[in-house]
């Protein structure tokens, strides 16, 4: 027996290093290493811990360019049993709706599943919508912002969900989609042995025609996306500014005003 677990993964640029092309309003993806979205590492770790507890199989799924294979290999090193990359030119330029549609089609093709895990958001898109939309497309319930898995069995999960300023202890049977926060666990480092093995692992790549029995191509990629982007504005980084006061009371008042304005005093 055991549970069929799916983890949704996105490859993102290392957001602390990436540079922005201010003129084109785009991320310069060549400026930083690509890696698994940090929140998805928590989702993967959660799935692996569930597998360790009640048994099962973990399948990582990602939609992205051919080079996203490296992130799926990393997922295998970190405990996923198999990985599928959805890669096709027609998938490119998708908004959250078209992305979640494509992912849900792939999940249908995978077949039976019990639990889908995803991170609460990605560090490049920052929408936090895809997980919930995948659940809607599949017609299954979802629990968001899960900070703790309290209990898991073959047919039920009990979790703590943090929404607004409240904590909800929720229980659900399967199938279910769970989106996790950073607090849910601390992802382990892969062992060198698993990392080296995963480098040679085969990643299944599904193109549009591999999904032909479950997908309507009018709903994928740029043309299937209801969202249109009119303009992207990249906020300018504010530099720290120094201020010198010759009169002490003036300076003290300035600092007091600034602290009050920020509601710090």
């Amino acid at each position, binding site marked *: 027996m055991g549970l069929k677990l799916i983890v949704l993964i996105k490859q993102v640029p290392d957001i*602390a290093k990436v540079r922005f092309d201010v003129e084109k309003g785009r991320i310069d993806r060549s400026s930083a290493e690509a890696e698994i979205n940090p929140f998805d590492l928590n989702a993967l770790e959660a799935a692996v811990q569930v597998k360790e507890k009640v048994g099962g199989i973990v399948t990582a799924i990602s939609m992205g360019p051919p080079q996203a294979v490296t992130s799926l290999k*990393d997922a295998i090193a970190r405990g996923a049993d198999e990985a599928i990359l959805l890669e096709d030119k027609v998938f490119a330029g998708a908004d959250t709706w078209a992305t979640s549609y494509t992912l849900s089609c792939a999940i249908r093709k995978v077949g039976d599943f019990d639990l889908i895990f995803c991170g609460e958001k990605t560090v490049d898109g920052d929408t936090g919508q895809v997980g919930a939309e995948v659940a809607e497309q599949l017609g299954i319930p979802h629990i968001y912002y899960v900070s703790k898995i309290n209990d898991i069995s073959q047919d039920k999960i009990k979790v703590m969900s943090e929404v607004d300023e409240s904590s909800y202890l929720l229980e659900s049977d399967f199938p279910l989609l769970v989106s996790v926060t950073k607090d849910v666990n601390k992802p382990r*480092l*892969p*062992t*060198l042995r698993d990392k*080296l093995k995963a480098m040679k692992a085969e990643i299944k790549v599904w193109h549009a025609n591999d999904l032909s029995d479950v997908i309507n191509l009018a709903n994928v990629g740029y043309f299937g996306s209801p969202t249109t982007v009119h303009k992207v504005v990249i906020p300018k980084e504010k530099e720290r500014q120094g201020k010198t006061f010759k009169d002490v009371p003036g300076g003290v008042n300035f600092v007091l005003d600034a602290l009050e304005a920020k509601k710090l005093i």
Partner: protein
Amino acid sequence: MNDIVKTLEDIVGPEFVITSKEQMESYLIDETSIPVRPTPSTECILVKPSDSNQISAIIKLANEKGIAVYPRGGGTGLVGGAIPTKVGIIVSMERMDKIVVDKENLMAEAEAGATLGQLLKAADEAELSFPPHPGDEGAQIGGLIVCNAGGARAVKHGVMRNFVKGLEVVLPTGEILKLGGKLLKDNMGYSLMHLMIGSEGTLGIVTKAFIKLTPKTERTLTLLLPFNTRHEALKCVPKILNAGVVPLALEYVEREVMELSAEHLGEKWIVSGKVFLIAILAGGENEVFSDAEKMSTIALENGGLEPSIAERRDEQESILKIRSNIYTALKPRYGDILDTTVPPSKIGELAEIIDAISEKYSAYIPVYGHAADGNVHSHVMKEDLEKYDKIKEEIYKASIELGGVITGEHGIGKIRVKELYKFLPAKQIELMRQIKKAFDPNNILNPSTVLD
């Protein structure tokens, strides 16, 4: 004293002469642990010059008045080197902090008051790198040079000395000298530059330096090798180096202090094992993974547990941050950090001796260090201060007997002078005294440091 203040104001400008105790407080101490920290003089004047000529004028004044001069950098020293213990003038280098990178010559021209953080940033912006990481990023270039700072990455790249190619210094008699330059070879006479490096601010005030930079490394990988015993971990070190692997850094740490440091940072240390070697490997993808495999095989053959690997920047940084913050996490609890260094092959033996000393005095002695260069930091904790002298003496003796030294990177400063006299031959001390006298006949520059 008032006329000295007046003249100093004429030299550097009145706003850069500070006599109020409150504004000076942080300039009177450094990172030396309180139980062993020298008592600073309360009769000091703090000046903040902006160029070498001003420093030269300050020094000439000090010679004339017979008053001490204490050069001041980032204040990150651990042996009281920057603490003014006599009436004197503290010369803070903080306003002299410009850095210019010469890409063609792979060289940075840095003023002494620029910080290590600024140098790393300047190198990075020029698409180059300054590979060693010789200490706290708030440390200043001048201090790093006169303390010949070491740090974790000495294994592959060496210490500060290996990167300094030229210096501008103000001598204790006021003359300004330029030593070396943007040169990779320089045999023109005795190397006064190398005498300055490691002189702990006693032979001259470094005002500017030419520092060698290198092209950027392709990538780094952090490998964690867990073990169950100190001995198993440390005996692997010479084997790793013999296998032809030269990591950027090879650090030795213990679970207890890593957990303490992680907690201090609000993080968790979740790797199993009691002690760890942490290796940073640098190079191309094939090279780093092949080095990782070699190290892993050696560790597993010598009782090691399953090694883990960090490839992502955030995961590598998290490990290093926990490692670097051992110092801050332990700070409220220790009385002194020892800095003994032995030949790398002897580090296992030294660790066993420290274990025995720990048992003999029933003292908890946390140990961590730069394993591949034999540099071990043993901590004498506050609760063991009454046994401090004996523990220190035994660790020092053992290190010397193993062919080592009592300090590998922290230096002598003002708190290890007695031990220097004890463990160096009298002739060597005598030659050092003559050198000091030749540079500083009136003994005005950082007195009671290295020699008293």
